[in-house]
């Protein structure tokens, strides 16, 4: 059998946390409206039982992703871990509670993550920070600064690709040492890198005066 030549290497891509500039209706919609819609979608999907609604919702979200001009192959590539998780969780639910529940759970998970990706793809992180800072204003009364709460959200979005890159580097390093079968050789360096990254990021934020 002929082995397929590997294609060009794809960079790690995370659909969450990456804004794609555009001028469509979703890009022009206020960040608050998009987040509220995401919240409502989540609540409806969780509270409602049945397969029809999640399938319809998935169709609507896929159409929204297409209208936001999210690249289909790269989006699917970025969603691969979510698809695997959905397959595992859905498979378990199928075995435990029947195929309809399994399909419903898997569809809901994919729908919600894709919907969140559409929100971040069509909303600048800056606008999200403004919104979260406004929403977090009441937290001032318990000593939390809204700007810091908002920044934490931004850092969380940025941390996802960094976490993926750290894990890939740790995996490559373990492979280079012939330790690819050792979870410890991958997990420990990846965790250490992430803690180091967190420390350096905190220091850099302090240096930029962003949390003053």
């Amino acid at each position, binding site marked *: 059998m002929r082995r397929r030549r590997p294609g060009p290497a794809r960079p790690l891509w995370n659909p969450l946390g990456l*804004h794609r500039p555009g001028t469509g209706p979703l890009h022009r919609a206020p960040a608050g409206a998009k987040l509220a819609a995401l919240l409502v979608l989540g609540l409806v999907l969780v509270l409602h039982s049945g397969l029809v609604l999640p399938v319809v919702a998935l169709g609507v979200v896929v159409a929204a992703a297409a209208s936001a001009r999210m690249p289909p192959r790269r989006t699917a590539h970025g969603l691969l871990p979510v698809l695997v998780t959905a397959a595992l969780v859905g498979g378990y639910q199928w075995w435990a509670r029947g195929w309809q529940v399994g399909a419903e759970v898997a569809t809901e998970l994919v729908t919600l993550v894709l919907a969140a990706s559409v929100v971040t793809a069509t909303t600048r992180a800056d606008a999200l920070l403004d919104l979260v800072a406004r929403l977090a204003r009441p937290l001032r009364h318990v000593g939390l600064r809204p700007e810091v709460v908002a920044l934490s959200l*931004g850092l969380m979005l*940025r941390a996802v690709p960094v976490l993926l*890159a750290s894990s890939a580097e740790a995996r490559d390093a373990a492979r280079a040492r012939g330790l690819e079968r050792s979870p410890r050789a991958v997990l420990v360096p990846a965790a250490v890198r992430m803690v180091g990254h967190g420390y*350096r990021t905190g220091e850099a934020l302090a*240096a930029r*005066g962003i949390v003053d």
Partner: protein
Amino acid sequence: MIELRDVQVTAWTPDPDGRERVVRLLGPVSLTLGEHRVAVVGANGSGKSTLARLLNGLVLPSAGTVTVDGLDTATRGADVRRRVGFVFTDPDAQVVMPTPLEDVALSLRRLGLDDAEREARARDALGRFGLGALADVPVAALSAGQRQLLAIAAVLATEPDVLVADEPTTLLDLGWRAHVDRLLASLPQQVVLVTHDLDAAVRAERLLVVDDGLVAYDGEPAPGIARYRDLVARRHEELLP
């Protein structure tokens, strides 16, 4: 004007037997830095990064005072950081937003500008550093040199009076190193450059050689670099069996 008066930085460190003791990382150091271009060289662990971090209040002195335009870093840290920008070796730790535009806009948030003005100023800052066309691409897609340029652009967007750069070219290839060096040399701000690049250090107006937590040389760059080479050679001989 940056002034350090009898500054010492100490830290707790564990002994091999598990107990902790206080070690001196830097000092005592007294300096007045008014030159437009100051370079700081020294071996790894010599204390030069600690010295740099003192200048915008990232590290506070255990004894003595550090002031910038009369503002004490210990009591007026936020005001000092508005005056003193800081660029790190690794831009990945410094760049925290998904795209260059958003990262520069993050720096500008503290100026209280509205959205449109913030975006316009962020695009303008990126354009000045040749990153205008990359404003909306993922940061992960930029080269190491472009990410370092972005880190510098994000710091300079708020127009600080002083830029402290801690080994900003260490992770860059020869071409990007020359580009960043030229860029730093062209800035109107006072620049304090911590570096292992002796070609860049020799172009400064004043050179500080830091060795074992002390300023071993302070003066003209050329003789200072000769002194630094001697120091390195001596330390290397001490290390040899």
